């Protein structure tokens, strides 16, 4: 039997792989059918037809909407003898529809390329005279090699719709003028303005003053909050693990309590506990003849308060982590040190501390990043107050995140909020990247086993 008999469709000069690829490039699924994978080809063809229909019936115009963001604002129109309000284009909805359309088209493009590659690959297999997978084989392979993709399909869709799409949307928003009072749909249109929001944030007096003030406080807060909880945690852990201390388990359980109480409850409780007039803390201070402290009412004291309360909340977590590390320090290190006559402090300085620091350094940086974004403590405890007359829409204890929240929900300054979100992202990404490079666990993950 000659080769032509096995490959009856093969023509001179062009392999069946190339033909299949070209066919698939012209119409999705055609190449698969040429390769005699009928069911697969039919599915691809169906997907192609549905996509084509969707593109013609809306996706294309939706994508164009992403470019224009609407051309017709809401306006009054004369109908007969009456003027009637005619709704115009809603720029924000158009933006989201445009993004959805864009996302769909990008996914379609990937699928299209994969479809051509697949046709080519199967064609090559046929040229070499290999057996081509039937639909049932393909289906079975999905449970084997494709298993991780099956597992990840649903989570990916969820993340795509509810995380990636919204984030892209918010990033784009920074480059528009979507902001109260003049550019709020459906009454008005929103337009692309390039980097103007960012330059305004730095150059306009009211904004730049607030931005620099809030940014400075955010960084001070993140540094102090991280350092206090971290070293507080180490101290408490060492206190419990000391030789001669009894009921270690009891103390540990007791000190975990602040971690076990839901944060938002303990913060709201603290807010009342520290009430200037009626709160019990000031009540006791007055009983001791010291007068009340304006815990939450004075700009300086409010900053001290959030840091103290954050210690109450954060130390238990550090304590748990450090306790875990402490038990992992090899006993013989201490024994050797004792033989050499080391004092308690020397043992702490030269064995305990380096060990703990080395083990927990990555967490330290992650906690720092977390504190930059620590929304709950500030929002629930002070809500950014006390008010600061010099700031635009921010109070004395506002962090960048809480400022962002206020700009979005209370003041509708969406473009500024989004620009701030991008800046927060850049700060955190820089720290995380540094951390990521340092931590070897990521690079060497396959070496564990």
């Amino acid at each position, binding site marked *: 039997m000659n080769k032509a008999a096995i490959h009856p469709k093969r023509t001179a000069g062009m392999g069946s792989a190339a033909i299949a690829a070209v066919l698939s490039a012209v119409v999705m699924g055609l190449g698969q059918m040429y390769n005699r994978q009928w069911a697969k080809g039919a599915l691809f063809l169906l997907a192609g037809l549905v996509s084509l229909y969707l593109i013609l019936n809306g996706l294309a115009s939706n994508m164009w909407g992403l470019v224009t963001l609407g051309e017709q604002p809401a306006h009054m129109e004369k109908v007969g003898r009456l003027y009637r309000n005619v709704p115009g284009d809603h720029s924000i*909805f158009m933006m*989201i529809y445009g993004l959805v359309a864009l996302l769909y088209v990008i996914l379609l493009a990937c699928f299209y390329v994969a479809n051509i590659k697949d046709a080519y690959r199967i064609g090559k297999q046929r040229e070499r005279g290999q057996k081509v997978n039937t639909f049932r084989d393909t289906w079975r392979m999905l*449970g*084997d090699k494709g*298993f*991780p993709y099956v*597992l*990840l399909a*649903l*989570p*990916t869709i*969820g*993340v795509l*719709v*509810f*995380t*990636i799409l*919204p*984030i892209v*949307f*918010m990033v784009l928003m920074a480059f528009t003028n979507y902001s109260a009072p003049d550019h709020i749909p459906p009454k008005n249109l929103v337009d692309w303005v390039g980097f103007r929001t960012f330059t305004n944030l730095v150059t306009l007096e009211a904004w730049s003053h607030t931005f620099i003030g809030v940014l400075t406080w955010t960084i001070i807060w993140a540094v102090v909050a991280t350092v206090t909880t971290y070293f507080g945690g180490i101290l408490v852990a060492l206190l419990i693990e000391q030789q*001669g*201390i009894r009921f270690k388990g009891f103390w540990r359980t*007791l*000190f*975990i*309590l*602040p971690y*076990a*109480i*839901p944060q*938002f*409850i*303990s913060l*709201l*409780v603290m*807010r*009342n*506990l520290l*009430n200037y*007039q*009626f*709160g*019990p803390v000031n009540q006791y201070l007055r009983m001791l003849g010291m007068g009340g402290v304006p815990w939450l009412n004075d700009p300086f004291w409010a900053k001290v308060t959030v840091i103290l309360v954050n210690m109450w909340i954060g130390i*238990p977590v550090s304590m*748990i*982590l450090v306790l*875990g590390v402490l038990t992992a320090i090899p006993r013989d290190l201490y024994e050797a040190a004792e033989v050499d006559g080391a004092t308690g402090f020397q043992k702490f300085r030269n064995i305990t501390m380096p060990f703990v620091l080395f*083990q*927990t350094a990555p967490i330290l940086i992650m906690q720092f990043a977390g504190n930059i*974004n620590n*929304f709950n403590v500030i929002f629930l405890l002070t809500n950014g107050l006390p008010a600061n007359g010099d700031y635009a829409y921010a109070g004395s204890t506002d962090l960048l995140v809480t400022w*962002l929240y206020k700009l*979005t*929900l209370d003041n509708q300054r969406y473009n500024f909020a*989004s620009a701030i*979100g991008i800046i927060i*992202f850049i700060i955190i990404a820089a720290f*995380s990247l540094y951390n990521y490079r340092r931590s070897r666990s990521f690079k060497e993950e396959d070496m564990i*086993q």
Partner: protein
Amino acid sequence: MKKKRRIKLTISYVLLVLIALACIYPALWIILSSFKVGDSLYSETLIPQKLTLQHYADLFRSQSDKDLPYVKWYWNTLKVAVSSMVLGTLVQILTAYAMSRFRFRGRQTMMSVILILGMFPGFMSMIAVYVILLQMNLLNSPWALVLVYTSGAALGMFVAKGFFDTIPRALEESALLDGASHFQIFRRIILPLSTPIITYIAITTFTGAWVDFIFARLILRSRENWTLAVGLYELVNSYSSTEFTLFAAGSVLVALPITILYMFLQRFLVHGLTAGATKG
């Protein structure tokens, strides 16, 4: 030498007791306040002279002057938290499992994307989520909350991935040789070994849904659909100066289940925290 040691121990015990007081005091104070007669924040003594259960009773009966459907809120929260826990844990475990045990194309990219997404402020996406839910006609529904929490669950997969990384690969290789399918391996070998991490993820997702008020406030528009976190926040904002004891009773009931859960399952939480920290 011995005397010096005794002094050191005494100081340590004093410090331990002081820290213990600081840990317990706020909790003790709010519990005692919830039993206090009257409604004001101010109290002459720490332990009230007269105790009452009135405030708890107030929470459970409807009052004409206040719109506080506390029982309804409790039920809503329970519903949302339990559903999110089940679905979220499932999604997170499966994602982590796929990322940990398989080497497939696009894996590194996906992990980097997850890492990067984690760096955006969580609620930066609020407006877009709002519009999307509006279009899906899901606004004001507790299921929308479950949907949002569950979709985000995959992003927290690093702790579980770190755990799966430590399970020896030889186990599943021998099972594969015996002809087990991937699904069977997951169910019969991996799942039974992962109880600690599943417990950890289940508790944290449950708590996350139980206490979240940022998305809940955005999505749940009408009062009777609120969750406890939203309701309690409103209670503090609008009534705390006048109805402090009512707030105290409400907080105790919200915090109690979580706190008890945490104290009892401490072992798993400590395990999860340390695992997440060392693996990153």
